[in-house]
């Protein structure tokens, strides 16, 4: 972790304090950006090759460039920050806001300057009490500092518990005081976002990366990392590792190194079974697939992704059917209900997986599971159901033998010895009539 960018100086000093942050050169990048024109700031960020840290990995500079110029669209521009981190396995934005709130705010103000916005809305997940309080205190310290704020209003907007509001158009709906259901795209937020005005939606980590980029220059930042995945990434490592936590790595670091060097290896020195590389929405990696760089291209070659950088490590006691149940139950609970394939499909997935686990499933139901997954893919407005389907299908794909064993042996070979056995999920608290599985 020699090249910390987002967390630079954050382990040595208390950067939640404005004075401490300014003592490390904080808000100098903002002053520098304001001497540059908005376009020059966008060019600098484009030169850094920074790509969005929320999960979609879209080039940040290009996203900003989509915002129409004031003469093309008279509506005010808005910057909306997606601080609704809710992806199972990811907890990086939580720590970024709590540890470097001023670097995050500085990034927001530089971005507001680049896209010519006078309003910044930080949509922070409702459950995140501590990061919210840290940001409130940081903004309190900035009161009266017009040299920093320069007429920009920053609003902290708290969510109220809904994973789907991390999807940018659902977030905008929620911010407009509605149920958080995704919109059809196009129009994209850059054209018609908040209040039907041009809007940039960026992730917390992306914002916290902007000041260092402006400070050292885009070209210098792009020297870190590997092609198509420049710079650093804050990776959340959890599950069966000895030292779970957030680690800022250079993109391209091997997954093996994340687990065994940073994470300290598998708890109780057990055997590694699988790794979820980028939050619950990503294709799982088997124990023999970890000699791969943690970067866009290397993971794409294995049909998976960095996603929101939530690395979840599973040891050899874990049952993949049980994992499928818990993941499927999560998406079933969080489906907003707007698109039928997602609303019904995730429920079907859970039911079939439960039958497999209980030993009630017949051979054809394994194919039915994959068929249901296939019927969700590409048929919804947003990626929620799709990612559930892709993730669960990947468990079947990579551990087919284990799923087959559940059918052949009429039950789970792991049972109670797996830590994912009989975990009570919130969706199980809701009463609804069971869906009958169609016989062959």
């Amino acid at each position, binding site marked *: 972790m020699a090249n910390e960018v987002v967390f630079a100086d954050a382990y040595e000093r208390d950067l939640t304090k404005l004075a401490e942050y300014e003592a490390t050169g904080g808000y100098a990048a903002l002053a520098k950006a304001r001497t540059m024109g908005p376009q020059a700031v966008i060019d600098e960020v484009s030169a850094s090759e920074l790509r969005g840290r929320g999960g979609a990995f879209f080039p940040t500079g290009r996203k900003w460039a989509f915002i129409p110029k004031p003469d093309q669209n008279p509506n005010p521009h808005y910057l909306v920050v997606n601080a609704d981190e809710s992806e199972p396995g990811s907890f990086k*934005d939580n720590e970024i806001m709590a540890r470097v709130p001023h670097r995050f705010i500085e990034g927001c103000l530089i971005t507001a300057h680049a896209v010519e916005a006078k309003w910044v809305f930080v949509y922070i997940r409702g459950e995140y009490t501590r990061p919210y309080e840290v940001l409130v205190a940081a903004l309190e310290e900035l009161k009266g500092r017009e040299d920093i704020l320069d007429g920009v209003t920053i609003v902290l907007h708290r969510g109220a518990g809904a994973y789907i509001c991390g999807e940018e158009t659902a977030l905008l709906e929620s911010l407009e005081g509605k149920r958080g259901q995704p919109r059809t795209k196009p129009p994209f937020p850059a054209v018609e976002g908040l209040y039907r005005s041009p809007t940039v939606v960026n992730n917390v980590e992306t914002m916290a990366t902007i000041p260092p980029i402006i400070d050292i220059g885009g070209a210098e930042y792009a020297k870190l990392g590997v092609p198509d995945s420049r710079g650093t990434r804050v990776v959340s490592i959890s599950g069966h590792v000895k030292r779970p936590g957030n680690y800022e790595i250079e993109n391209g670091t091997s997954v093996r190194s994340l687990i065994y060097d940073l994470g300290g290896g598998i708890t109780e020195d057990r055997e590694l079974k699988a790794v979820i590389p980028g939050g619950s929405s990503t294709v799982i990696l088997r124990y023999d697939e970890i000699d791969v760089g943690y970067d866009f291209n290397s993971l794409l070659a294995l049909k998976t992704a960095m996603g929101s950088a939530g690395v979840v490590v599973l040891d050899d006691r874990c049952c993949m059917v049980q994992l499928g149940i818990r993941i499927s139950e999560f998406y079933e609970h969080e489906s907003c209900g707007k698109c039928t394939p997602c609303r019904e499909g995730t429920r079907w997935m859970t039911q079939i997986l439960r039958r497999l686990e209980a030993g009630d499933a017949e051979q054809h139901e394994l194919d039915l599971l994959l068929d249901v997954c296939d019927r969700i893919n590409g048929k919804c407005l947003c990626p929620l159901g799709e990612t559930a389907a892709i993730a669960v299908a990947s468990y079947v794909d990579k551990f087919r033998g284990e799923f087959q064993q559940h059918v052949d042996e009429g039950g789970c070979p792991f049972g109670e010895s797996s830590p994912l056995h009989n975990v009570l999920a919130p969706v199980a608290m809701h009463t609804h009539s069971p869906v009958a599985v169609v016989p062959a």
Partner: protein
Amino acid sequence: MSELYTEVQRLKDSYPDWHSAMLPALRLAHEKHGYLSPDALRECADALGTTPAVCEAVASFYDMLHLKPIGRHMVEVCTNVSCALVGAQQVLERFEQELDISAGETTPDGEVTLRPIECLGGCGWATIVSVDHHYRTHVKPEDVSRIVQELRNGE
């Protein structure tokens, strides 16, 4: 004019469009009434200048907004994958024993509601238990009786 009404006017003024004050207003009404009772929804709607039905339609979407009474304290145990891997289910079961209720229920004295919750974004500090929306980290089953005692003592 109630305090809530005044506060909601301030919220409406803090956004370019008053509709954005909906969630913060619902959160305020929730806090004041303990849950979003019919009275709470009416008061919230009056302050916003909309109808209780609109407020309820929005509120029913969100997990933190309750339309039925809940306990004075809320204990939420994350049972998503990362927490489950290190024993969240055992933590949840210990709470059930200590409180003598099942997950999803409220103690008969109306003090504590217990429920499992989806990923709270603290996977590296598992098991996460949110007590009145403040996170307890690295919770083990043996920590549960102390947490319950603290709640009962009003700490």
